[in-house]
């Protein structure tokens, strides 16, 4: 094998190493999922996913959440734009957009966790599940 070929091989290997590390970083959830981007996404309104933080030295009163099965509906709108924590929609011929934010809330059907995703430009999908709150202490 010539020296030139060996050099090319080294360069290719380096390129691959860099690429693998980049893909690994993306896979670690730091570009696509947003799961670990800071504490407090929807805080107070939906259970905070594991943050890796251990910040509070006092007692915590937080409840325990138990979830029901996920159900979903597709809703037709005039226009839908995806946001990082919900969707912006316009409907019934109105020009104003309003936001449907991913959250845990009670809209008359008991406490549910809602998640909104645009489904094309003129529909959104709302996924929801019942949430049961209990205060159990370990």
């Amino acid at each position, binding site marked *: 094998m010539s020296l030139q070929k060996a050099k090319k091989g080294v360069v290719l290997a*380096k390129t691959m190493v860099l690429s693998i590390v*980049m893909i690994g970083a993306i896979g670690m959830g730091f*570009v696509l999922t947003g799961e670990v981007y*800071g504490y407090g996404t929807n*805080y107070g309104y939906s259970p905070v996913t594991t943050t890796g933080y251990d*910040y509070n*030295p006092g007692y915590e*009163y937080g409840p325990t959440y138990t979830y029901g099965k996920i159900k979903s509906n597709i809703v037709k709108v005039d226009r839908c734009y995806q946001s990082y924590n919900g969707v912006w929609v316009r409907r019934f011929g109105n020009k104003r957009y309003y936001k449907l934010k991913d959250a845990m809330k009670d809209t008359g059907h008991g406490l549910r966790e809602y998640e909104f995703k645009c489904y094309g430009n003129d529909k959104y999908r709302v996924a929801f599940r019942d949430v049961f709150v209990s205060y159990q202490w370990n």
Partner: protein
Amino acid sequence: MKKEFKTIYKQWPQVAAVFVFLFYAINRVWMYARYSAAGFGYDTGIYRHIIRGYFERLGDSTLPSFGFSSFSNSLRFLGTNTDDILFLWYILFGMLLCVVFYVVVKLYTKNNIISLIALILFTTSIAQFEFFWWFYYRNLIGLFFVLLSFLFLYYRSYLLVLSLFIIGTIHPLSLVPIGITLLIVFIYDKEKRKYLFISGGVSLLSIFAFNFQEIVSYISLAMQKTLYVSDASKQSSAELTGQFISLDFYIRSAFLYIFFAFAGLIFYGKKYKEWSVFLIVNTILFALGILFYRRFLIFFDVAAIFFAAIFLYYFLQDTKQSKLLRVVAILFFALMFFQSGYHMVSKQPLVWSHEISYIETIDSMVPEDAYLLTINSHYAPWVQGFTNRDVIAPGMFEYDEWVFEEWQDFWHGEDMDVRFDLLRRYDRDIFIFLGDRDMWYSDVLARDSHFIRIKDYLWQVSL
């Protein structure tokens, strides 16, 4: 013009460093600019309370010794107000930290491009962003002087005495990794032995003389709670971890450079012995789970960045020959900026600005001798820092007289009389603060006329 362009082109690493520093400045100011006092982490309120309290009670011998107060009191004497010390000086130290890191890397490596790479890694490090955001004020000053110690060590300057003294006084924990590192250097490096013996000895004696009480309290804490966090109770262990990011979070956030750091240590560790020792010492301190061990990740990260930058510099030498590698390398660094930028803009505060505004109005509605009770330990530091009232909080501060089971009764109990009995233990009036997270509790309070609503977020107890 052409000549000037050529000069700039020759100095491109320095020019690029200025732009990277601009990104760093935006990155560090972002949360404060967006959310004001609510923009920083859990310790903000605690520091506000400390800065104000130690100055107001200057000379009070009952106050526990706290080296940081020497720093904050000096600034207060110079006419700086509490919030300027809290935010302006904190941000200033944050900026200086970046500058001193760049200078130190340049000094040790004597290479502009390695310094630039290190600056990029430091600027885009999510661990460093989190560290700054959580408002570990003393730790930040500690890190700043740890880096300055490396600078003085390089020149064998006796200013090292001063920097070690400041670290040991303001944040003794930061003295542990740098102290052990210097001790190891003292053992293996004959040339620096005398210099380190004098510097280390004088600074240690000065620290003990000036801050003896605080040092003893740390030693006694280690004795009481056991040196290893895993042996502590569940409640204590949360606090004794150092309350910083977990190893899992760190690896995910530092994935882009962590492997290169270890590769750098293996290949170039011998050339930069002091930094190798520093990296290894911090790794061991973290791995052993010693008191406040998570904070050692901050020092570890700085050393890791140092070696990652050196390794990446040599690793990417072939970019001149390969266009593909050049493109991938550019994407690699772009991903760092993207990752950091995305993390920054997605970050949400622990409390909202309007909650801070509510808390700040409390002093005008609550008598001076009344207690202010927060049912949520999450809000406790802000309530303590942004009011002048004595605060009762779950499991925190000096006025909490209830054990956890009693707090459970207070939060969730069916019997209102149990709540009243608990409240009667205090001999002064009590007002209850509810943050946005606590609004469910207003239903509990509204059930009984002994609780009088003043605002949605403030209730008076009338027994």
